[in-house]
């Protein structure tokens, strides 16, 4: 078990900048998720940690030891590939035993460990089969077994659940998390699914276009997204983002203005609106909007709109509200049936709104 440090690493493939200046520290025994859309450099980063790719720039440290030039076989890493990469010509048993055979462990020891890990992952019935005779979920367990059997210092998982059906995914999610906590292996988990990352990881590194966007625990990512990308990527249904301007007509009030919208922001200090005016993006999560009656709130602190469409989610309704030129999504408890076309008044929870600078995309609050 080691602490992994990525010290300003970059990876270029010709003109393609797959990973750019990535700095990251993964603590001993920590479960970190790399989260980002397809093509943002997650796999490339993982392969650099594994030693398959050599970083174009920067260093990789295991426990302060520079391993940048250490070949993969000497890094004691376990890895599950997205395709599982099981050896098709070997039985399940031989697949799992392969890393131990390479370590030249005694036959009895190998047999013991293989059966132990197979029991742990509940694949002990399948040891004689070939990979072609396994289902997706079974292959996934075998791949996990092969990665874990050599008791690696670092476990790397590249979208291990993306080829499974939804139900199995939820099951394996919990199982992998439990396994990781039990074995206390430093783990990097790559995914493009924010729910997976949020539910499993201790910390999440959000990436986009090869660059790290934010590195924090799930709650911080959710409550304090550092920029517009993180705000829009984390959370389902996604955050409402409205482009507009901040106006500070006097020293103690700030307004957000956009086409058809003028909203007073009571919690925002006026100095955020530089020179009394600034181009910003306002972010409000669907659950942070609520319907109010006509006399319930200061009119300047509410928005008026009409219901565009209602999506019942069982426990709640997701209501699309047309406000000015914008359609906002809001989550409301499922009582009564709001009707399309109905005019309503909504008020944001001002302690939970987000403001981003439009140019730098960075959070202002």
């Amino acid at each position: 078990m080691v602490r992994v440090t990525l010290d300003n690493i970059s990876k270029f493939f010709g003109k393609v900048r797959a990973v750019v200046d990535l700095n990251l520290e993964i603590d001993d025994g920590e479960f970190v998720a790399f989260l980002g859309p397809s093509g943002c450099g997650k796999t490339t980063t993982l392969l650099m940690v594994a030693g398959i790719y050599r970083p174009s720039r920067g260093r990789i440290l295991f426990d302060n030891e520079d391993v940048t030039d250490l070949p993969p076989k000497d890094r004691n890493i376990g890895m599950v590939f997205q395709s599982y990469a099981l050896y098709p010509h070997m039985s399940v048993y031989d697949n799992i035993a392969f890393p131990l055979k390479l370590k030249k462990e005694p036959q009895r020891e190998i047999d013991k460990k293989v059966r132990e890990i197979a029991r742990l992952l509940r694949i002990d019935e399948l040891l004689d089969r070939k990979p072609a005779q396994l289902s997706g979920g079974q292959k996934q367990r075998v791949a996990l077994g092969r990665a874990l059997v050599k008791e690696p210092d670092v476990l790397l998982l590249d979208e291990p659940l993306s080829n499974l059906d939804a139900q199995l995914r939820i099951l394996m999610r919990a199982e992998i998390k439990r396994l990781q906590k039990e074995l206390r292996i430093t783990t990097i988990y790559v995914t493009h699914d924010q729910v997976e990352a949020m539910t499993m990881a201790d910390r999440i590194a959000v990436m986009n276009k090869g660059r790290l966007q934010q590195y924090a625990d799930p709650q911080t990512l959710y409550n304090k997204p550092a920029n517009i990308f993180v705000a829009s990527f984390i959370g389902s249904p996604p955050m409402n983002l409205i482009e507009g301007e901040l106006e500070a007509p006097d020293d103690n009030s700030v307004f957000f203005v956009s086409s058809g919208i003028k909203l007073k922001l009571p919690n925002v200090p006026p100095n955020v609106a530089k020179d009394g005016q600034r181009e910003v993006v306002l972010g409000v999560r669907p659950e942070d909007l609520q319907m109010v009656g006509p006399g319930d709130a200061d009119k300047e602190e509410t928005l008026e709109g009409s219901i565009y469409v209602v999506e019942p989610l069982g426990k709640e309704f997701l209501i699309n509200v047309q406000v000015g030129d914008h359609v906002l999504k809001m989550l409301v408890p499922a009582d009564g049936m709001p009707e399309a076309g109905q005019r309503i008044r909504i008020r944001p929870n001002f302690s939970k709104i987000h403001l981003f600078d439009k140019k730098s995309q960075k959070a202002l609050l």
Partner: protein
Amino acid sequence: MGRTGEDIRKRIARARLERMMVIAVVILVAVVPAIPIWLMYGWIISQSFSGKVILGILPTDLTLDNWRFLWSPIKMGEKEYPNIWPITINTLALALTVSGLVVFVSSLSGYALSRMEFKGRTALMQFIIALHAFPSVILLIALFVILNKLGLYGKGFVTLVGIALIKAGLEIPMATWIIKGFFDNIPWDLEWAALVDGASRWKVWRTVILPLVLPGIAAVSIFSFLSGWSEFLLVFTYVAQEEYYTLPVMIYYMIGEFIHIDWGMLAALGLFYAIPTLIFFSVSQKVLLRIYVGGVKG
């Protein structure tokens, strides 16, 4: 939706008819052209075991006399030919050397071309294809000069080694190309997984890659063995002494014997010539069919 029972029955009948037509086409294309070949094999077998042949077709007098070349010197008319066994060994040595060289070199070079990024890789691949366009007849004179310079000409067995080198050289480009195709089909993930599991590059090649390209290697070894076994031109041109002939050359000389030609023995000889080929083919064909890549296992 308006689909009556009769309609469905009609459709089923039509589907059956179509299936039968498919079978008919397969028989027509795959089986019928093979009939003359099987007839010829049948003829050569019966011919080789019969003493007299009526009208060149009907065998009579079961005998092993035609196979006498296996245990006694071959005599046709006045001329006595070398014993068959050294000649067979020459042929086998040539074929196996060619096959071994081709498999060894092309499995490594195919891997390099498929997996490694280096300058001029594409140009090299195009060059390989172009190389294959040269028939060995064109190269005959140039090769002669080279063999002479290397001191490999007219040196008996050493000349055969030289021929094996040439033949292998001519076969390697295409074999490399074939094997490269098999390597291309192995996903990178598989190789990376083995590296992460703790294998060295060589070990990955031995334990993961090689078993997966075995069908390709089997194919290449069959083809190169056959081309070595049946090589005529190079041996005919460069080998001066009779005792270093190979089977195709000897058979050629014996067919050239106009007056005293012994058809029965030639048939037996032809059959004898085909035996190693059949054995080699049936052995490597098993491997050929055991294709793992793509999830099919043998």
